[in-house]
Every structure is written in structure tokens, then in C-alpha cells.
């Protein structure tokens, strides 16, 4: 399948959070939701529909794959999802983009200070 231009940065927030949740370990669907909630301090809660819509797209683009059966330890009935090397590259590119946005924003904010009323 051809690489989707929508998957090059900037990524949709749900995709970014899913990739970020899978960056450190393999997780199942509910685990991804919990990890996203934890990372965002409870501000961003994903529903199962949004999660699997985005997960399907990420899997179609080979950024996320099913984890092999041998790695399933505790809960063998649930599928685990794993970030691929390509997924990690896309995530890194997105983090770099966000970092440059933050840097630019800080510069602008420091340059122009609002007048005192």
C-alpha cells in the first residue's frame, strides 16, 4: 500500500497519542486508552471507536502491527499492538516538528511582550 500523505507530520492528535502510548511497550486496546489517559493526566480520553478507527489506519500503513503470540504473557485472549520501526520514525518526526513549534512559540512570546494597561 502506498504511504498515506496524511500520516506524515502533522499527525492527528489521536494517532500521535496512540503511537506515543505504544512507544515504550506493547499494549492491548484498553491498555492504550489507559496509557493515553495517564499521559495526558486524564484530559484526553479516547473512546473505543476512535481508538480502533485510528489503529486500523496505523496498521494499514504498517506503523503498528499485532505483537507476536510468544510475547503475550498475562492475558492471552487479548491482542497486543506493537510500534514498528517505521512507526517510530514517524513519531520521531512528529515530535521534532512539535519541538520546533514550541521553540518558535517561545521565541515569539519572549520577543513581543504585551503592553501594560
Amino acid at each position: 500500500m502506498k504511504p498515506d500523505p496524511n500520516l506524515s507530520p502533522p499527525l492527528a492528535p489521536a494517532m500521535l497519542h496512540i503511537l506515543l502510548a505504544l512507544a515504550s511497550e506493547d499494549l492491548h486496546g484498553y491498555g492504550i486508552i489507559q496509557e493515553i489517559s495517564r499521559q495526558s493526566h486524564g484530559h484526553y480520553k479516547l473512546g473505543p471507536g476512535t481508538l480502533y478507527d485510528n489503529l486500523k489506519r496505523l496498521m494499514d500503513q504498517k506503523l503498528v502491527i499485532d505483537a507476536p503470540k510468544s510475547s503475550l504473557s498475562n492475558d492471552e485472549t487479548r491482542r497486543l499492538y506493537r510500534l514498528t520501526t517505521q512507526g517510530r520514525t514517524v513519531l520521531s518526526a512528529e515530535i521534532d516538528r512539535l519541538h520546533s513549534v514550541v521553540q518558535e512559540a517561545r521565541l515569539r512570546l519572549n520577543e513581543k511582550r504585551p503592553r501594560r494597561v
Partner: protein
Amino acid sequence: MNPPLRALYRSILHLHPPAFRDRFGEEMLWIFDAQTREGRSLQLFIDILRSLLVQHIDTQLHPQPEPSGFYSEISSTPPLRRIVHAAILSIVAVLTFTRLFGPQGPKPRLSYSALVSSSRVHNTFTYWHLYRVEVNHVYANLNSSSPEKSLSARTTQSGDPR
């Protein structure tokens, strides 16, 4: 867990495209059970309705290739594209039929084919009948004109005094 809500969620899930439902349906139901306990039912229903819309649009825009196995699930729901094609073909067929066989259709031609319609047979007979009447009339004129009349006519035209 609320059984009616779960049944409703499952029925909405059943409206998703088969490939998506088979792949993620059970996991979505499992997460629904877990999150219902947190009291997020309304958000979950909005979420799955949005997902339903997204998946159907995605399926229309990017149809998946058929699996190469011996057995595959056949969707009983006809795709919208086929319904539109069928409607267009039906309209074209009806218009063509009414144009050809309607009261303002093309005029029948003389034909000797055995496979002609009854109207064509009727028109063929009429034309043939008129043709025979015309031929008989010509013959009658020829026979009625005598040789003397024709000879006197010729002499009058040539100006001979005899």
C-alpha cells in the same frame, strides 16, 4: 453492566463493515463494558456512531481487495454504487423500450422477414395492396388506348393534311 445498553451498542457495532467488525468488534465490546462502569455511556455511543460513519466513508473511498482464500464472508448488503448503477440501467432500459415500441416510435418498413411484428405485417400488406392497385390502373389505361387513336394523334402532331 447494563444489558439493554450493551445490546444497543452491539447492534450499532453490527452495522460496521464486516472486515472492521470481525477484526475489532470483540475488543470494542470489551472496552465498552470496562468504560460503562466509569459512567461514560453517552460518550461511548457518540464515539461509536462517529466511528460507524468514518468506517463506511472509508470503505467507500478505499475498497479492500478480496481475500484469496477458498472461503470468504460475502456481505449481504449491496453497495451503494451497485444500487445507483442498477437504477440508471433500469431507467435507460425503460426509456429505450418506450421509445422503440411506443406510439411515437420509428415507422415500420417493408420487410419480408418471417419474424416481423403484426403491425409490420399489416403495413406490408397495405403497401403491397396499393402497389397492385396502381399497376392495374396503368395496365387498364394502356389497354383502353386503341391503335387508331394513337395513329391519329401522331398525324395531328406531324401536321399531315391527309
